[in-house]
């Protein structure tokens, strides 16, 4: 314990210099900005800003870049709540209840609870990193391809729980998402699948394209339809901040979400993606009245937001303790560290303690800064939404188009987004929801790759999934979740048949 305190004091002494505080602020501001802008993500921005960091000392550079990363998580929930566009993969779940809350005039409350929940989660996650980094890394190393495949399969079960309406439609959308994830070049053999020979598809469909099309543009199309109902969003502002009752309702979800997100974020290979989905499923299960979910339940925002921020912070652990980046953004951090002459690896903690602890202390400070930045902005965002829709939606179109183009500098991405917009619009008209498709898409690639890897290592032996204990446990959990979700629906339809 004394060790921890002395480490932390070293960290704070590094983080609380004028230069590092300033860099953290810049990082958080830029991060929030790009989180809010649809399509533009931390990867593009960090890449653009890398050259600027050459002149800075390494700790400062990392503090700024890290600030951009977790700042983007805060910003991503803003668009998810206000215009139903998930800024990052992890904000998809926030759209479900967050946007509904905005439609009910509770946008301020949703934004507020997202910011507060994220702050709490950030603090928890930073504490976890400080205290438990090394033991948790060992946990991450236990996960092999079989466990990942099982984890992803369990994640798919969550997709069913996400459903607001018909379970079968939700399953169908999940399968559609899985199908979309197979488009691209197979990693193992180099063969192109489902690309129809079209070069821009050879690396698969981009997440931003689907998210923007299915959520953002389709939402615009839906809103244009319902001219009369739309006044509600721009109408009553209501409270700008969560009330005490809201806070009490959200307390449990935030705590649970933080823990779930923190643990999943450690798993290399982008385990953080599952955090919000797991939290949502958990809250829906634990709530007294699950039917509120999908209609503006505050727990559906508080839990997932906490999970996604916790996951974003703990995903630094594999980078800092092992030197192995768990996702594309962390890989950039590796590059940034390498360029500055620090090669990340297991010895960074001991050889470069001021870097390690300085970064951790700065994360806590960054979270505080983001809270301070985001809370006052809520009023500005809510006022922005009162702009007449006939002007608001063309701006949404423009920002989304530019954002999509900026991901790969590819006009065909923009075209695909339009296609997905039509599909999303038509699908929603007949009662299909888009969130399960997105989940299926995100998990599909991870599931398939890990499944094949596990089978390659096991030489085709399927029993490997039940022989390994963690794997079996995960699969079982997934099965349970699925059964519990599907059972009421089956019972209901049986009753319907009987009453008829």
């Amino acid at each position: 314990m004394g060790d921890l305190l002395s480490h932390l004091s070293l960290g704070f002494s590094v983080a609380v210099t004028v230069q590092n505080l300033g860099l953290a602020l810049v990082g958080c501001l830029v991060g929030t900005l790009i989180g809010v802008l649809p399509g533009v993500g931390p990867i593009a921005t960090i890449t653009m800003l890398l050259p600027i960091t050459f002149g800075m000392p390494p700790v400062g550079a990392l503090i700024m870049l890290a600030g951009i990363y977790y700042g983007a998580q805060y910003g991503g929930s803003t668009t998810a709540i206000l215009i139903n566009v998930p800024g990052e993969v992890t904000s998809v779940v926030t759209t479900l209840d967050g946007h509904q809350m905005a439609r009910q005039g509770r946008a301020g409350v949703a934004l507020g609870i997202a910011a507060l929940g994220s702050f709490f989660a950030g603090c928890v996650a930073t504490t976890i990193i400080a205290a438990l980094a090394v033991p948790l890394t060992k946990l991450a190393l236990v996960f092999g391809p079989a466990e990942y495949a099982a984890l992803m399969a369990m994640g798919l079960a969550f997709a069913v729980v996400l459903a607001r309406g018909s379970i079968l439609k939700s399953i169908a959308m999940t399968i559609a998402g899985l199908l979309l994830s197979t488009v691209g070049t197979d990693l193992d053999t180099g063969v192109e699948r489902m690309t129809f020979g079209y070069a821009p598809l050879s690396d698969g469909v981009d997440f931003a394209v689907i998210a923007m099309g299915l959520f953002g543009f389709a939402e615009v199309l839906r809103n244009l339809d319902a001219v009369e109902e739309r006044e509600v969003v721009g109408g009553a502002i209501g409270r700008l901040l969560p009330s005490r009752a809201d806070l009490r309702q959200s307390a449990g979800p935030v705590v649970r979400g933080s823990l779930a997100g923190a643990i999943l974020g450690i798993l290399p290979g982008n385990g953080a993606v599952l955090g919000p989905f797991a939290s949502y499923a958990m809250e829906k299960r634990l709530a007294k009245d699950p039917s509120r979910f999908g209609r503006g339940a505050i727990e559906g925002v508080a839990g997932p937001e906490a999970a996604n921020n916790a996951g974003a912070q703990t995903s630094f652990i594999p980078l800092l303790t092992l030197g192995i980046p768990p996702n594309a953004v962390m890989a950039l951090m590796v590059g940034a560290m390498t360029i500055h002459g620090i090669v990340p690896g297991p010895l960074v903690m001991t050889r470069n303690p001021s870097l390690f602890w300085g970064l951790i202390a700065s994360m806590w400070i960054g979270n505080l800064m983001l809270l301070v930045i985001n809370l006052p902005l809520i009023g500005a965002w809510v006022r922005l939404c009162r702009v007449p829709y006939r002007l608001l939606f063309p701006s949404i179109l423009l920002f989304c188009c530019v954002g999509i183009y900026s991901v790969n500098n590819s006009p065909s991405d923009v075209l695909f987004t339009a296609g997905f917009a039509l599909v999303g619009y038509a699908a929603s008209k007949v009662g299909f929801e888009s969130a399960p498709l997105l989940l299926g898409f995100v998990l599909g690639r991870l599931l398939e790759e890990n499944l094949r890897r596990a089978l390659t290592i096991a030489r085709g032996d399927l029993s490997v999934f039940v022989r390994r204990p963690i794997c079996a446990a995960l699969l079982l959990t997934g099965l349970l979740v699925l059964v519990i979700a599907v059972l009421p629906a089956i019972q209901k339809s049986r009753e319907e048949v009987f009453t008829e």
Partner: protein
Amino acid sequence: MKRRIRPPLFTSNERKPMRPLAALLVSATLTLSAGAARAAWPERPVTMIVPFAAGGPTDVVARIVGDHMSRTLGQQIVIENVAGAGGTTGITRGAQSAPDGYTIMMGHMGTHGAAPAVYPNLKYDPVKDFAPVGLAAGTPIVIVARKDFPAKNLKEFVAQAKASGDKLNEAHAGVGSVSFTTCSLLNSILGTKPARVVYRGTGPALNDLVSGQVDYMCDQIVNLVPQIQAGTIKAYAVALPQRSPALPDVPTTTEAGLPEFQVTAWNAIFAPKGTPKEIVAKLSDALLKALDDEATKKRLLDLGADLTDRASRTPEGLQKLVEREVARWSAVLKSVGAVAN
């Protein structure tokens, strides 16, 4: 940065009689300025396409070298990462861009050596479609295995591989990647057919090697040094003529008994075919200056890069290297049966 020609007298009707004269003036200016542009190159930032995600070894080399070259040339070299398809997407874009000296690219052993064998529908020819500038740096390859693999040195490893090769699991980062191509060479030398487990990038592959899910891997030294130094993985040999300063305790393949395994993942700068010779000469000069600069050299060597191949640093030397490598890798990859599609 912006070359704007004053909108001339075309717009209003009263100036019609001036049109032919104005047109003549404009075209004369354009021709003169084109010639002047060549002499004055570079007048605005130059884009260097790096066909991999930022942060990887090629990207880091490009940034280090580009940083110094910017100073010599007087204009920023802006790195643009265009990842995909083992690097071929970015190189295709670079090859098809205008040969005006404002777009160059950093290719490597994969994109300009192994690609023709791996991608039959490749949209460029590494030997013919480029104006080579020069070799930047090579990253040596190391043979590594999981911590508790039952072989203490390369000889034992070779023996084990030959005995039970197909029971082993080899990790690589995708068809066409450096780890794939170099391990193909290793496997063809050893005559083994291990299960080749594919990962999306070196990070996840290394992760599974550290956790012991897979048995061995061949990868660039940059990615591996910290793990080797921390003891989380074992290094058997480095494929260099002499030991690498970054890993002084690891024997070379020649010392350890497998001299046939000699390979370096080289990174080089190319310009599109047709780029004027003066511009290529300026680029080459800037590159050579960068590689002779002590600070740049130190940064590259700290990464473990290999700067010994001086002959390929010139455009002619690079062209010869590309031709050699294309021939070599098509032979190796065909023998291992690793041709895609």
